């Protein structure tokens, strides 16, 4: 479904992705784990088109994506819940969700919104409040729900567990796991390697702009190198 080959990207003259190879098949949950500053966010931004790539190829459902502007990529089926949530703070929770389905005007929009409220009941309670007033965890839920409103084939999640209390982290990971039943393909980027690998089918380990390890999630959890570097075991 998604394949990345030799992807490079730079901020000014400083290259931070030095040729990333990665692929995600339909209905998989794939995770990219790595420490602070490894380039995970930059990779996702290249995929969603909000950061230019300087080399390599991105193909999604058969089409080259590199030259497609960011705002057209959701129409192709690629949705992103970005780092830092990036919700519309001045708009209400409901308006945020409605805008997630900006591309659509059919009846399914209402149904999808009900689904979102079922997934995160707290959002229904706060539907008319300004999204900027939500707690960090609620904002994260809103960011994921908004990304799902766009009816993605593939959802890119950037550190959904960041800054959340352990109980909320577990809830968010449960939701990500449940996307399997909705047949949404997931590419999950995390510093919380253990949590991410536990729910993923496959994983990649990223270090300073390079993929250093790849494999089935269960194998990676068992790998001594991963255990030492990321799981603190």
């Amino acid at each position: 479904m998604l394949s990345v080959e030799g992807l490079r990207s730079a901020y000014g003259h400083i290259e931070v992705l030095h040729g990333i190879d990665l692929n995600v098949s339909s209905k998989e949950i794939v995770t990219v784990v790595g420490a602070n500053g490894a380039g995970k966010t930059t990779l996702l931004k290249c995929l969603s088109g909000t950061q230019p790539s300087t080399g390599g190829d991105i193909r999604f459902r058969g089409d080259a994506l590199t030259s497609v502007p960011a705002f057209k990529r959701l129409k192709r089926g690629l949705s992103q819940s970005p780092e830092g949530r990036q919700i519309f703070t001045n708009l209400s929770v409901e308006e945020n969700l409605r805008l997630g389905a900006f591309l659509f005007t059919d009846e399914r929009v209402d149904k999808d919104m009900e689904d979102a409220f079922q997934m995160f009941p707290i959002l229904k309670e706060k539907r008319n409040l300004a999204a900027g007033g939500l707690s960090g965890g609620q904002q994260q839920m809103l960011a994921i729900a908004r990304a799902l409103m766009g009816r993605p084939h593939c959802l890119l999640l950037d550190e959904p567990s960041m800054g959340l209390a352990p109980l909320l982290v577990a809830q968010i990971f449960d939701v990500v796991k449940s996307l399997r039943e909705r047949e949404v393909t997931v590419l999950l980027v995390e510093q919380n390697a253990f949590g991410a690998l536990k729910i993923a089918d496959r994983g990649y380990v990223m270090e300073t702009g390079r993929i250093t390890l790849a494999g089935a999630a269960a194998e990676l959890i068992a790998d001594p190198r991963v255990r030492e570097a990321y799981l603190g075991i």
Partner: protein
Amino acid sequence: MDALMQFIYSGLTVGAVYALVALGFTIIYNASDVVNFAQGEFVMLGGMITVFAFDAGLPLPLAALTAIVATAAIGVALNKFAIEPARGAPVVSLIIITIGASILIRGASQVIFDKQLHRLPAFSGDDPIHLLGATLLPQSLWVICGAFAIFIGLWLFFTRTLLGKAVLATANNRLAAQLVGINTGFVMTLSFALSAAIGALAGVLVTPITLVSYDVGVGLALKGFAAAMLGGMGNPKGALVGGLLLGLFEALTAGYISSQYKEAVAFVVILAVLFVMPQGLFGEKKTERV
């Protein structure tokens, strides 16, 4: 009593013009957080182009339409050639760019048109209407109704349409707007076209009363800005109420104190708002959590 009524009518008429200018500010501000100080120039262009097209023999409605379309195109050009290339610059720099653009437009108009005062015939004649002991020009009704019509249109646009929400979303978080599929470049183009068209319409409506010359834009931008501040920047309801209130303050000051102090009213309002309630009458306090 009759004198008071007369002051109220004239206050509402100029207030409606300020409201139209303030409504023009609203759209660009909502899309980009930029206060476009060239908004007064759009009003001037609306009046000037209509006058010259009308004098060239076009019927008045067609002349007005030409002016509105041409001004909208100039608004789009302003965005394309001055604002868009500076994307990413701080909002203050963008505001300074709009001030530069207003000077350029004024200079160009002086050369292309002339330095004379021009007028247009009133749309529905000049016979005053007697109402509640005072008189009102039919053209004043045109201006007041125009302001209300534009207000209702904009209010519906921002609260009821998905495109209106997309404009608000673009201002709030451009990156996220792109992620949900909004073409933010188009939103900006649309905002400048709409703002400029509303400004031009104000110019068309008011020229039969106040006349127009190449330099009327500066004062109007300032008054419109004061009105928008008073009502709360970015809120169409605020723009309308702020405009009407400012017009009334001015007319009552001129009537009961001295017309010399009239021009100071806008400055007093700006200062008072900044000190007492920076978010204006209807402005929302921005809530943000990091």
